[in-house]
């Protein structure tokens, strides 16, 4: 079971703001879902290997050859705010 305080902590970790009636609702719904998920505890999984992907995936290597790329300018086109060759954000320090 998660408490409202824990939900607030999770929201903060997720960089989301949850307030008022929404907090109440989310806490209830999350508990309902977590209770349902707890069904997995009926199952003995000792000695079972975890699966992270549907099939074995190897790192895809390629030759280390530089190719021309215009990604820089294109990426900046979608930016909410940009200056020169950089994304611009509010003052950090």
């Amino acid at each position: 079971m998660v408490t409202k305080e824990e939900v607030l902590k999770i929201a903060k970790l997720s960089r989301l703001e949850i307030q008022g009636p929404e907090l109440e609702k989310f806490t209830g719904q999350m508990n309902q879902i977590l209770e349902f998920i707890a069904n997995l505890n009926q199952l003995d999984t000792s000695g079972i290997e975890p699966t992270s992907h549907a099939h074995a995936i190897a790192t895809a290597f390629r030759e280390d050859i530089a190719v021309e790329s215009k990604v820089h300018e294109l990426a900046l086109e979608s930016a909410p705010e940009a200056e020169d060759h950089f994304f611009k954000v509010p003052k950090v320090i």
Partner: protein
Amino acid sequence: MPLSQLSIHELHEKIKKREVSSLEATQAQFDRIHQIENKVASYITLTEELALQQAKKIDAEISQGRPIKALTGIPFALKDIFVTQGIKTTCASKILNHYIPPYNGTAVQKLLDEGIVHLGKLNMDEFAMGSSTETSAFAQTKNPWDLERTPGGSSGGSSAAIAADLCFGTLGTDTGGSIRQPAALTSIVGLKPSYGRVSRYGVIAFASSLDQVGPMAKDVRDCALILNAIAGHDPKDSTSVKIPVPDYTKALTGEVKGLKIGIPQEYFVKGMDSEIEASIRSAIQTYESLGAICEEISLPHTQYAVPTYYILAPAEASSNLARYDGVRFGHRSQNPKDLIEMYTQSRSEGFGPEVKRRIMLGTYVLSSGYYDAYYLKAQKVRTLIQRDFLEAFKKYDVILTPVTPGPAFKLGEKKDDPLQMYLSDIFTINVNLAGLPGMSLPCGFTQKGLPIGMQLIAKHFEEEKIFRAAYAYEQNTKWHKQKPKL
């Protein structure tokens, strides 16, 4: 028959014989859209001007000798999860409300290279999180068979558009059933290929170990033609597999004699709709009458798929959606006092409730102290679910199941009950966890006239067996020929 009702392969024959030009087909399609799209609301963005230009260009190229491939000149639409160069791509989220991508994803580029005409972008659940298209920030798509009901989700714009003849072919994506469930609820054909069969480059990520791109179309042959065009290895997606792509239309023989079909007993659950069960049982009889061998089997870990999925998918989503922070693209909150507030406000304003719920669930199961109890546990159960299938495929060619426990539900019915909504995917999620190919195809209607679908599942990269079984059934039934009255 009006042009818009034709299948892709029927329209292709007419384009090939020069009976119809791509421009005529595209204009007919927009006539239909202007006539009934306001009832169905399947599109987020229409690109009419661009589509007419594309069609004219293709017609001109054809007259100068451009080879007419299976999809050349065919009007298509895309789920708004596919990144399209110069065309707004929202993923049905306010956070991407004004996002115009600088590139095309691989599957989209392959279709454009074949010469499709692009009509527009289709509605969906926000970030593909949902089973009814009700979490879209922009529109409520309706089921063409009953406008008070859901077209399914998350690819509900795609299913509705195909069922209502608002495009000839589409691509959807499927993380837990998002191609197959909407296909079943609207009487169209939808295929989730094996994980790794189609590149995910340029597909907005939800849960990367489960997401897969696939065709949604009016019949089995159309799906095979679309898969032919989009399948294959892509250096830009390291999880796409280097296995040769067969011509899937070669599997459309109509012959299933001796094909071994497994029917898992766990898919006929208590509380399941009796009309759906009757339709599936009748489909099994059809297969038997065609010479296939149908036997009951067991997939003992079936009931654990939904809880496993609702650990793994939110965990992956919480990581994937961390990129929406207002820095590089997408919505940025106005006048934040510092960087952290900019992140928090941009995300809180941009994401809808279901997306927030899943990000938080994922953050929770991955957080310090809970990893082993939730995430690792779910990965182990995933192994057991996959083993069930691999064991069954030692003896059987395909597995036949229902797609959904009930027909299309009413809009609003499950909207405020996330758990009930999650349970509408109990028959499709297993296939994603195991990485298998699965198809939904029409197999009947309820007495109220709501579509029913059946699911065919095969071993990894054995899509041909699904096509073989599906085509034989389709050739012996007429469900796919029925059209909704609009």
